[in-house]
């Protein structure tokens, strides 16, 4: 592409249902778009494809089957042939044959990623109908290099199979999701802007010198304020490239215009942000971090772990799986180095099911393998016809499932969570929720591996940095028993279901002040302020009597620090207060104070006005009841015996309370057991997930098989359509041809026949399948069966004339030829009967003509002989003979010219007299109507006129230089016999006086004889003073019509 101006190359990925989409697409592509198209489809390996032929019918562009080393030209279409994988480099296609039995399962990814590397901005990817998720990795590569991506959307003409385009659209990388019929228009629209970015940002000009440097600063500012992310540290070239891509799509000409748009359109900053964050999540992306990971994290994970243990790793937001496999490879490497390694499970989750299916397939195009060292490639990947497949040893470590960090209950007891470049997509609220979730999921001391741009923010009490530069953190043991964050009911925690340590807010000063006012009102009993979860926010003085520091980790939880005897009542009273938002009291609760002294206390729990953080808090007041005082006070009412009777009751009460306490403890133990049962269920669930996994990959294989079948089916349909058309052509040909043709199979059974056959055989449509011998034949062809058998045996053609001897019936030419199947073997006989009646008639006519000619020639020779004989004996002049022969020849010539048909009388006269008069001579006058003479009459007149002229030369008007001759004629119709009479007059003038008729001799005899005998007419002569004249009356028969 170095010498010529670059042009966009459009890669089109399609699969099941793609044929129709491709047809529609190419019907709308104009011939002068100036782009090259490369079509990649999922094809069965051992089948010829008709795609090229099919497409050629729908486009004016040249369609080629792609071949190795073929140079890519604009306005051409290249189609991937079966059994091969296609890449592009140096402006030419590279075709690789695939070994038999293997098939490339993601050929679209392979081609797209090489297209991205080859063409950069000029790469265009189009994803059309197809199931599965092939193409997602490919368009990622194209977007990363600044190319354009389109996918078939479900409006307009819907894709027959929306798996592929939907996966592409779900990845968020598609610039235009449009119906297939609008794609060509979109390409044309963007044709101008493709490559524009190179011109603007490229050419090596440092971006800082760009006149729009100020606008770039503005861009940074907009992103900082709107998205909370600072991009000023990013590679400027990449940054500008992506900004320009957004500008193109929004049809903005200047950076300044785009900055305006950013401020105007509230959606656009998010879109730009998303585009900016596109990364090819290639393997070991950010090598430095992975080095640190290998050195610091991996050894720690395996520290003090035996073969019975499990190392659990969670990768939330794993997308298409490159990061997961990178980590799994590092872990596998470590496992391979030592014996007795623990089991390793890497849980990889994402909310995008389609991305996960890409990850599960574990096949990656070479473009994404840059970060993988050759040794690792060798060891942990198998090169499978152009793409790299993760080895089973690594793949088996990983379990993929759909899961949302924010919505679903988290995993637990993780040794490592790798959560790179996920938090940056989260807003501040989501981050506040996600980090504690991750903390919960980690076992104490577990490690957290974040992306470069991510921090743990304000949760430093949960995570301690291990390697700050590479964002590796360790989970701190916060001392609070790990409680699962609540995920139920739209993130609103219900009371007592959870204890949220992160919300032990130091706030509530206003609440305290109002509480103090109330305490003053109530004479200041000891009290605490708690939140609705029971966490103590504030202690008053003198609470020691009711509270004691509990065993284990320090806690501010009221219910764990209250004295045992009070807990039950406190719990119920607090719940009552929280639920009812009213004051709850419990009176006369006995408890053992220091020195075995039973004391009584009253609890009052009262809701306080909401504090600054908007969360309710409660005042818990302990009011001491002086029993003795009470007793003395009650003495007036209560009699002594009753007082005495109290002590066994009290003892019983104490027993009961102890039993209750025991029950509570048992309950808590049971709770623990439930928890561990739950753990077991969780791990069972994980196992289910992994079998589900296997099912998924089986399903995937089935899908791709299905895919191939679909494609094959599509092509089959197209072929069947062609066959139908050809068949219909044949049927029409059969119907229109008048040639009777019968196809017989090997057993001489009728396979098919043309309608014309019905005139030869007593045959109807249902006779197909019957032997020909069963049918009555209307032809005189007794040898037919023998002939057919002979053709079957020898394969040589037999041709015969049939019916020739039967008068009045059509004549046929029968041709029996061998029917050869595609292998050239004789598989039957084709019998053809051509009606040659007209041919036979022509032959007959020709025979007649030849006979006629024979007759005439012999006749004329006889005439000549007779003439010679007569002339030679009577006039002894060879000259006279010659003259007569010439006259005969002239009459014949005239007849021959008219094909022995009728001739004009005037012509006959002119022809006969031509030797006696020069051209245009004044001595000859002709007059008369047009009369047509039959051949015989014409011949006779020719001879008569010649004799008359000869006599005139010898004795009459032509013997001197002044005489002249006039010939006139007329024809008269006689009505009775529809015949007419021709009267011709010969008159000589200016010659010598007419001689004695006797001297005229043989000439007149000949004339007389010819007129009366040959023409059945009459002649009259006059030998006057002025010259000879003759009148001839000849009957003319009406010409046969």
């Amino acid at each position: 592409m170095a010498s010529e101006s670059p042009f966009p190359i459009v890669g089109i990925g399609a699969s099941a249902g793609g044929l129709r989409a491709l047809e529609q697409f190419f019907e709308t592509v104009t011939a002068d778009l100036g782009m090259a198209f490369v079509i990649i489809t999922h094809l069965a390996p051992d089948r010829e494809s008709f795609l090229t032929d099919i497409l050629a019918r729908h486009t004016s562009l040249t369609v080629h089957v792609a071949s190795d080393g073929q140079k890519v030209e604009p306005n051409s279409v290249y189609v991937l042939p079966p059994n091969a994988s296609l890449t592009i480099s140096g402006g030419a296609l590279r075709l690789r044959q695939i070994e038999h039995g293997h098939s490339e399962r993601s050929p679209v990814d392979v081609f797209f990623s090489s297209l991205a590397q080859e063409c950069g901005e000029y790469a265009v990817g189009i994803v059309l109908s197809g199931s599965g998720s092939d193409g997602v990795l490919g368009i990622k590569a194209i977007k990363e290099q600044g190319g354009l991506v389109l996918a078939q959307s479900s409006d307009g003409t819907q894709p027959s199979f929306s798996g592929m385009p939907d996966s592409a659209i779900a990845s968020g990388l598609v610039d235009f999701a449009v119906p297939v019929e609008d794609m060509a228009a979109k390409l044309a629209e963007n044709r101008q802007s493709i490559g524009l970015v190179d011109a603007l940002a490229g050419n090596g000009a440092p971006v800082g010198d760009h006149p729009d440097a100020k606008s770039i600063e503005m861009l940074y500012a907009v992103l900082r304020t709107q998205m909370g992310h600072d991009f000023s540290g990013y590679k400027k070239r990449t940054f500008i490239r992506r900004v320009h891509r957004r500008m193109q799509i929004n049809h903005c000409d200047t950076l300044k215009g785009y900055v305006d748009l950013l401020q105007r359109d509230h959606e656009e900053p998010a879109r730009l942000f998303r585009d900016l964050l596109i990364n090819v999540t290639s393997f070991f992306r950010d090598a430095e971090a992975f080095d640190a990971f290998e050195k610091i994290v991996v050894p720690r994970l395996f520290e003090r772990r035996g073969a019975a243990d499990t190392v659990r790793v969670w990768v939330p937001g794993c997308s298409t799986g490159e990061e997961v496999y990178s980590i799994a490879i590092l872990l596998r490497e470590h496992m391979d180095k030592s014996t007795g390694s623990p089991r390793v499970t890497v849980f990889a989750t994402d909310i995008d099911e389609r991305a996960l299916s890409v990850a599960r397939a574990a096949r990656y195009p070479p473009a994404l393998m840059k970060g993988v060292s050759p040794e690792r490639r060798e060891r942990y990947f198998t090169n499978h016809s152009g793409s790299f497949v993760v080895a089973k040893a690594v793949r088996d470590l990983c379990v993929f499932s759909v899961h949302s960090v924010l919505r679903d209950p988290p995993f637990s007891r993780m040794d490592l969570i790798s959560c790179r470049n996920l938090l940056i997509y989260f807003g501040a609220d989501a981050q506040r929720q996600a980090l504690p979730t991750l903390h919960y999921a980690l076992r104490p001391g577990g490690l957290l591996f974040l992306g470069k741009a991510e921090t743990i923010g304000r949760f430093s009490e949960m995570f301690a940095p291990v390697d700050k530069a590479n964002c590796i953190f360790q989970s701190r043991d916060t001392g609070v028993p790990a409680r699962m964050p609540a995920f139920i009911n739209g993130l609103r925690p219900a009371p007592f279901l959870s204890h949220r340590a992160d919300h032990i807010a130091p706030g509530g000063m206003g609440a305290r002040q109002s509480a103090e006012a109330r305490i003053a009102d109530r004479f200041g009993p000891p009290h605490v302020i708690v939140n609705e979860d029971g966490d103590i926010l504030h202690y008053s003085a003198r609470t020691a009597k009711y509270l004691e520091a509990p065993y284990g980790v320090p806690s501010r939880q009221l219910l764990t620090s209250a004295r045992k005897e009070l807990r039950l009542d406190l719990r119920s009273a607090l719940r009552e207060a929280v639920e009812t938002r009213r004051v709850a009291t419990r009176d006369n609760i006995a408890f053992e104070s220091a020195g075995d002294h039973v004391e009584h206390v009253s609890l009052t729990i009262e809701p306080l006005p909401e504090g600054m953080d908007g969360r309710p808090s409660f005042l818990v007041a302990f009011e001491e009841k002086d029993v003795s005082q009470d007793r003395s006070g009650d003495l007036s009412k209560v009699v002594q015996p009753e007082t005495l009777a109290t002590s066994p009751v009290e003892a019983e009460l104490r027993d009961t309370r102890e039993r209750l306490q025991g029950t509570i403890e048992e309950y808590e133990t049971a709770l623990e057991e439930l928890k561990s049962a739950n753990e077991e269920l969780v791990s069972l669930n994980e196992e289910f997930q992994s079998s589900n996994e296997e099912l998924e990959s089986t399903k995937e294989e089935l899908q791709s098989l299905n895919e191939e079948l679909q494609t094959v089916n599509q092509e089959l349909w197209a072929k069947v359509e062609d066959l139908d058309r050809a068949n219909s052509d044949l049927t029409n040909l059969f119907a229109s041809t008048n040639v009777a043709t019968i196809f017989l199979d090997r057993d001489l059974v009728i396979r098919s026949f043309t309608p014309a056959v019905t005139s030869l055989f007593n045959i109807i449509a249902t006779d197909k399948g019957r032997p020909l011998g069963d049918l009555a034949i209307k032809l005189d062809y007794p040898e037919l069966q023998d002939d057919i058998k002979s053709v079957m045996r020898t394969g040589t053609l037999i041709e015969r004339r049939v019916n020739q001897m039967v008068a009045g019936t059509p004549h046929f030419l029968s041709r029996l030829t061998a029917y050869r199947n595609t292998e050239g073997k004789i598989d039957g006989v084709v019998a053809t009967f051509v009606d040659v009646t007209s041919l036979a008639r022509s032959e007959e006519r020709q025979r007649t003509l030849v006979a006629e000619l024979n007759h005439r020639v012999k006749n004329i020779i006889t005439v000549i002989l007779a003439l010679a004989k007569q002339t030679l004996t009577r006039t002894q002049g060879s000259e006279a003979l010659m003259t007569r022969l010439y006259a005969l020849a002239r009459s014949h010539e005239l007849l021959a010219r008219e094909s022995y048909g009728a001739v004009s009388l005037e012509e006959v006269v002119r022809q006969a007299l031509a030797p006696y008069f020069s051209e245009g001579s004044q001595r000859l006058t002709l007059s008369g109507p047009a009369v047509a003479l039959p051949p015989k009459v014409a011949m006779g007149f020719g001879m008569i006129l010649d004799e008359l002229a000869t006599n005139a030369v010898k004795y009459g008007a032509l013997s001197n230089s002044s005489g002249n001759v006039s010939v006139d004629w007329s024809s008269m119709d006689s009505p009775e016999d529809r015949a007419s009479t021709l009267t011709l007059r010969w008159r000589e003038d200016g010659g010598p006086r007419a001689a004695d008729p006797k001297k005229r001799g043989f000439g007149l005899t000949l004339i007389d004889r010819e007129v009366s005998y040959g023409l059945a007419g009459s002649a009259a002569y006059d030998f006057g003073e002025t010259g000879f004249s003759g009148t001839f009356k000849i009957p003319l028969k009406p010409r046969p019509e």
Partner: protein
Amino acid sequence: MASSTIQGKRVLIVEDESIIAMMLECELNDGGCEVIGPAPSVEDALRLIDTEPLDCALLDYRLADETSGRIASALAERNILFLMMTGHCAGDLPLELRDKTLLQKPVTGKALRAALEWILNSAA
């Protein structure tokens, strides 16, 4: 030719071409025959057959618009021998005439006379 069989025989000539008829007449006169006709058409010939006693006949097969088939039939009815004369090849003639004595045009006077002699002799 002193003792020729044809001497003095009455021979009908049927020939549409006048000059040929003249020649035939000439040839037969030379052989000592008495020529009846010549007749140029079927009608003329049939009239002559009806009115004139005949020894034999010489027929041109093709007359102007028809053949001499009818004349041949009329002659056969009366057991009058005849010679057929034609420019056609034998194969082009109707079957019933193929076996008759046939003269191919052109015919020399000698051959004509010899043929007449032959049929008259064979009949005798």
